[in-house]
Structure formats: structure tokens, C-alpha cells
């Protein structure tokens, strides 16, 4: 489904701030893969995700989704394939617009907007059912502006929007990191439910090792712009946090220096 082939990305090349964020990285995702991504700060997790989403062009390499080479496509064209949820709950929705207006926009992800009326009668019932499944009471607040919602509610709504028309690829960039533990758990639960219902090919960055082990069928760990560890299936299922730490130390030659990641 997703083929990332030998991509590299260097920020501020030739300056004192030069940062080789991705180094000749390759990654293949099969259809229906749910991959969790972990790694310390500056490992290149977000750069990988933003490269796939097209936030910036890569220096070299190719990115192919569902057989289409999207390497040269701008961000908005790639939206046809990709649904995204960001770390910042404010980023995924338009605060000054109603819940149903946000959903209406999301229901046309990747399609050219037309002069047709945006809020369609026939969508209302469908939106209502989907919102009800979030179990946050949002189905009765479809005319409320999104800015009135809490961070967790907004993140759940963004998740719903990103998956409204099943995307070829779902990118989750630490989408629960800004939420309190209870809300994060709820959003993760919803993520699991939606991803498995539609068998979405998913890439989920997390800071939390426990979550990385609990969710998905495959786990990759990044370090210095490379994929250090890539485990799938039973190998991943039997993995524990101490195993992961030992593997990391062995592969990278140094100890993991990220407290936040260990806390899970």
C-alpha cells in the first residue's frame, strides 16, 4: 500500500544548524498494516510522517501510495490518499465552524470543491450515527462551533474526519500526546475501533512504549533518521518494554535518553 524508498531529508543544509532528519530510509507497508512508530526526540518520526503527507519535499527517494508515485505532489493533492490526525488538537479542525460543517468538508477530502451547497441533507443522519459512536454526546451538538469542544473531543472529531472516507493511509502523529491520560485512553480506543473496522493502513507515532506494544501488528523504532528496529506479527506480540530497551541499546550502541518514552 505504502512504499517509501530510500528517502532522505536534511534541514538547513550547509549551515551550523544542519540536521539530517531522514537518512536513506525505506519502509513498506502492506494493506491493513497498523504500524506503531517510536523513537527519541529528533529520531525523525515526525519528519517521516510529514514527508509522506507532503508538508515539505524530500531531498531524494520516492514515495508511492497504492501504485501512484506521489513524491512530487503538493500536500493538498496527497489528501486524496491520506487522512491525518495531528498532535495539536487545534490543528485538525476549523474552530469557528460548526461540527457538521467540519464533517461536510472532511466528507469531500481530496475532491475538488464545487458550487454545490456544502451541508447536505442526506449526510446529516450519517454524521449523527458516526458522532454517536464516539460516545461524547457530540451527536446533539452538530450546530455547535468546534471551538467550544474540549481537546479530547476535538481530537476524536479529527479522527472521525480523517477516516470519514476510508483513506488509503491513516497518519497519526502522537495524536494523544496532548490529552490527559483518561481522554488519551478513550481516543486510543476509538482509534483501534475505527482502524480495525475499516482495515485501515495506519502509521501511528507514539511517545508511549506501552501503547506502541499494545496497538498494531507491527512496530518500528527510529533513531537518527533511520529505522533501527522493525518487528511484526508474533515477534511483536511477545515483546516487552525491557526487551525493546535492550534491543535499542544493542542496535544503536547507546542508552535510551528519553524519560517520557520510558514512563509508559
Amino acid at each position, binding site marked *: 500500500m505504502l512504499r517509501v524508498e530510500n528517502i532522505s531529508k536534511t534541514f538547513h543544509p550547509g549551515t551550523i544548524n544542519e540536521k539530517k532528519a531522514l537518512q536513506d530510509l525505506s519502509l513498506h507497508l502492506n494493506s491493513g498494516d497498523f504500524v506503531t512508530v517510536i523513537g527519541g526526540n529528533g529520531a525523525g518520526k515526525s519528519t517521516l510522517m510529514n514527508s509522506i*503527507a507532503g508538508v515539505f519535499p524530500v531531498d531524494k527517494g520516492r514515495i508511492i501510495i497504492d501504485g501512484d508515485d506521489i513524491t512530487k505532489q*503538493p*500536500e*493538498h*493533492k496527497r*489528501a*486524496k490518499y*491520506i487522512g*491525518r490526525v*495531528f498532535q495539536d488538537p*487545534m*490543528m*485538525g*479542525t*476549523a*474552530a*469557528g*465552524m460548526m461540527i457538521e*460543517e*467540519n464533517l*461536510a*468538508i*472532511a466528507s*469531500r*477530502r*481530496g*475532491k475538488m*470543491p*464545487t*458550487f*454545490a*451547497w*456544502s*451541508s447536505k441533507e442526506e449526510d446529516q443522519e450519517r454524521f449523527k450515527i458516526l458522532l454517536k459512536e464516539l460516545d461524547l454526546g457530540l451527536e446533539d451538538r452538530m450546530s455547535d462551533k468546534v471551538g467550544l469542544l474540549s481537546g479530547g473531543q476535538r481530537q476524536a472529531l479529527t479522527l472521525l*474526519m*480523517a477516516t470519514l472516507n476510508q483513506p488509503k493511509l491513516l497518519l497519526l502523529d502522537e495524536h494523544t500526546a496532548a490529552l490527559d491520560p483518561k481522554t488519551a485512553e478513550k481516543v486510543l480506543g476509538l482509534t483501534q475501533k475505527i482502524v480495525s473496522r475499516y482495515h485501515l493502513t495506519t502509521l501511528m507515532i507514539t511517545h508511549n512504549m506501552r501503547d506502541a506494544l499494545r496497538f498494531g501488528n507491527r512496530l518500528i523504532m527510529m533513531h537518527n533518521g533511520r529505522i533501527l528496529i522493525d518487528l511484526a506479527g508474533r515477534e511483536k506480540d511477545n515483546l516487552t518494554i525491557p526487551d525493546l530497551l535492550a534491543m535499542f541499546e544493542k542496535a544503536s550502541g547507546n542508552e535510551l535518553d528519553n524519560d517520557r518514552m520510558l514512563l509508559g
Partner: protein
Amino acid sequence: MLDLLLPTLSQGLLWALMALGVYLTYRVLDIADLTVEGSFPLGAAVAAALLTKGFDPLTAILVAGIAGALAGVVTGILHTKLKIPALLAGILTMIALYSVNLRVMGKANLSLLRVDTVFSFIKSMGISNAQAVLVVGLASTVLFGLLMYWFFGTEIGAAIRATGFNQQMIRAQGVDTNVTIISGLLISNALVAISGALIAQSNGFADVGMGVGTIVIGLASVIIGEVLFGTRSFKNCLISVVLGSVVYRFVIALVLQMGMPPNDLKLFTSVLVAFALSMPLFKKSIDGRKVAK
């Protein structure tokens, strides 16, 4: 006082189109667009030049709108494609338009006293001049108000509104934000230029300096409208801005009546807008003091 009522209301409605244009950039797109300082006199200049050459008023207004739209596109391209900050992009277009407006008119001031305008056309149906201005003001505000309400309810319009709230979000939904920003500036400046074309015909002249302070008048109308009449929905906002423009004209008429020299008008308007824009801050510090007690 009463004899002031009707003309003030009419003026407020003619200026309301400009205020709607400023609302579009300042609130919907979240850009302070100074192009309006040039596109307002541009509309006036184009309409005046065409009217004195014998074109009919509707054609003159239409072409004025198209000229304003082009000015908006120029600012949009400077901002999106050439990555010039929006404020500076607007200033560049505004300054360039000063020369353009002089070229369009051929001189700094063009009288319309002896030519047929949209108002003399309506008057010929047998109503007074004051009534004609009111009819044109009402008709244009209702027409463009409804057009805007329809357009910003469409998929394209919704994408433009979403762009103002969150560019990242709407890009992730597959919309090219360069296109939505340029479109927003296009519509805004078309409205402002049409307002300029109407005001010139109502005043009986177009002047190259008549755009000075357009943005501030627009902001005053938007803010007064929002404070007095609310911002619950997009429809509510549009009505608020139109009413804000009318209230602003009444305030101006009132302070002039009370003896303020007309030369001080722009100073007055600026202070008014500065005060209104800083209201949230004042409110916070007052609320803060309440809590402290």
C-alpha cells in the same frame, strides 16, 4: 435631526458593501488587507472614467468590480506565490493602484455632475434623489448580501472560510490554500471597488485620494456591527456588518452635528477603531481586578 436619518441610512448601505469586503479579509480570511485603500478609489475611478465616456451605469459598476477583483488577485499572488507577508502585499498593491487610478482617470479628480449615473437613472422613474440613493443602497446590499450568503455556504465558500480558521486543516482535506486565499481577496476587493463606484456616483465625483482610511472605516463597521449585533452564525455576521456600517455613519453624522470639525473625522475613526480593537485587553484587566478582589 430627522432629515439626517434617511441620507445617513443610505450612505451606510452604500458603504456596507465595502465593509462586507473588509469583513471577508479581516475576519473570514484572517488577513488585514490594505489593498482596499487602492481598490476603493479604483472602483470609483473606473466607473467615473466609463461614465464620462458615455457607458451606462450598470456596465461601469460591473467593470469597476472586475478591476477591483484583479487588484485582489494581484495581492493574492504577491502573498501566496511570492510569499510576501499579507500586510506588505496589500500595501504594495495599494501604492501601485495610486498610479493606476491616476492613469484611469487621466487626472486627480473627475466630476460626474453632468453625466448619467445609476442614481439619475433611478431618479428618472419619478422619485427624489434621496430616495434613489436609498433604493440603490438597499438593492445592492440585499443583492450582494444574499450572493455572499449563498456562496460561502457552497463547498468552495466553506473551503475559503476554513482557510481563514486553519490552513493546515483545509490543506489536509485536499484544498489548495493558495487558491482559496486568492479567491477570498478577489471577492473582497470586487465588493470594495463596487462600493467605490457607487459612492463616487453618489458624491458626484471620483478623487484619487478618496481611498485614504478605507480600511479603518471598514474595520470600524465590522467591529461596531459585531459588538452590537452579534456573531452567532455567518448569516448573523453579514447582517451585523451591514448594520455596523449604518451605525458608523450615524455616529459620524452625530459627532459632526455636535460640532466636530470634519477634518478631525479620520482621527476620530482611528481612535474609535483602536479603542474597539483593544477592548478584549481592557475587559481582561477589568475582569482580572474583579477576581483579585
